[in-house]
């Protein structure tokens, strides 16, 4: 009974937050509410027995998306300051009926699926069986890196494509005008000295724990990106115009290493992408984590490269 009450509370919270995000007056508030929505989503995932998704949602869905939205908003404001006052909603008589119709359709479909008693999915059973031979304890890492790893490889390619596509439209002024040299706030330096090593530690833990417990390269990459974002905010890392070699290596490392290992095993007679052992999984995950973190930090900085700022 209490369980259901908690779920009702989370569900109602999700709906209220989503509604306020959409119809709220100011865009800035919308972003903040969207982040809170993401965090509540993470609670919902935990309740649904999906701790991996809870971590991913908190780190990627709420954290990274929120940071990217905030920085995009700041850029809009910098171009012209009256952003949040802009009338952002328009009247439409169709909107409510269409939305209600769409929602009801999804409700009917979803309830129909849930109502039917079904055997566990064939693929799900296969995962459970195969997992015992693999040495991994976390079935989700198993699916992502051993069984359906082409999805994961192409997903890293999608992230790279998104960065490259964003790069075609980055205004160069981010890089040209370095962050105005503010006097650095003393507390921020102290914070960085504690937080950056700690985030690296947490990211490493998430990566290694990902084989047994919830966690993995994407969550770890997002956490690592967070410390990069802090460094950019504090001016320790500054946007740079050209794509220099270190950021480029970081961007491509995951995709390259994954592809090369996946191809190299063919030389030994194994099928394409059949990873030779857990060491390969860890190696690839580490590379992916670095690539994800680098891509996200560059997207946040809105630039092709980074250089060290004056401390």
């Amino acid at each position, binding site marked *: 009974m209490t369980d*259901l009450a908690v779920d009702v509370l989370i*569900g109602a919270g*999700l*709906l209220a937050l*989503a509604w306020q*995000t*959409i*119809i709220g007056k100011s*865009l800035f508030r*919308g972003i903040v509410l969207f982040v809170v929505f993401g965090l509540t*989503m993470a609670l*919902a995932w935990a309740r*649904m027995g*999906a701790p*991996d*998704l809870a971590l*991913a949602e908190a780190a*990627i869905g709420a954290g990274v998306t929120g940071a*990217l*939205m905030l920085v*995009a908003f700041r*850029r*809009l404001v910098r171009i012209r300051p009256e952003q949040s006052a*802009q009338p*952002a*909603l*328009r009247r*439409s008589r*169709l*909107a409510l009926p*269409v*939305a209600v119709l*769409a*929602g*009801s359709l*999804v*409700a009917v479909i*979803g*309830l129909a699926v*849930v109502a039917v008693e079904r*055997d*566990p*999915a064939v693929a*799900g059973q296969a*995962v*459970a069986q195969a997992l015992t031979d693999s040495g991994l304890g976390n079935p*989700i890492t*198993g*699916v*992502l890196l051993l069984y*359906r790893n082409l*999805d*994961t490889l192409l997903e890293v390619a*999608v*992230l790279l*494509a*998104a*960065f490259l596509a*964003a790069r075609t439209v980055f205004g160069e002024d981010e890089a040209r005008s370095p962050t105005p040299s503010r006097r650095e706030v003393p507390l921020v330096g102290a914070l960085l000295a504690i937080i950056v090593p700690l985030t690296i530690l947490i990211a490493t833990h998430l990566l290694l724990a990902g084989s047994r417990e919830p966690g993995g390269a994407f969550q770890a990459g997002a956490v690592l990106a967070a410390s990069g974002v802090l460094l950019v905010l504090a001016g320790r890392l500054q946007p740079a115009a050209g794509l220099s070699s270190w950021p480029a290596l970081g961007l491509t490392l995951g995709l390259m290493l994954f592809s090369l290992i996946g191809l190299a095993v063919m030389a030994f007679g194994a099928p394409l992408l059949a990873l030779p052992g857990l060491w390969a999984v860890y190696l690839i995950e580490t590379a992916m984590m670095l690539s994800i973190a680098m891509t996200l930090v560059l*997207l946040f900085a809105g630039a092709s490269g980074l250089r060290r700022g004056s401390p």
Partner: protein
Amino acid sequence: MSSTALYVLVAAGLFGIGVYGLIIASHLLRKLFAINIMGNAIFVLMVAASAPLDGRPDAVPQALVLTGIVIAVSATAFALALMVQLYRVTGQASLEEDPTEDD
């Protein structure tokens, strides 16, 4: 009512809110909120709809959703960059037609 059914209903509500937002919002940032909310609705549905395995949730849809979340963030990041540049070039952060366009 079971928790699963509850979350299915929440997903349906979120989907409806997303659709509503997509129609009434003209600022692109709001449209992105709406699309991301719709995406979350579908992710919840995918996980809730899969039958459990020995009482544990099926890992496959969760892995698919994890991939989906990362793809959603990638697309959102690109859309945000596109929005900023569109605003810089045209002074508009919405898709309302500007009458001088085309011919």
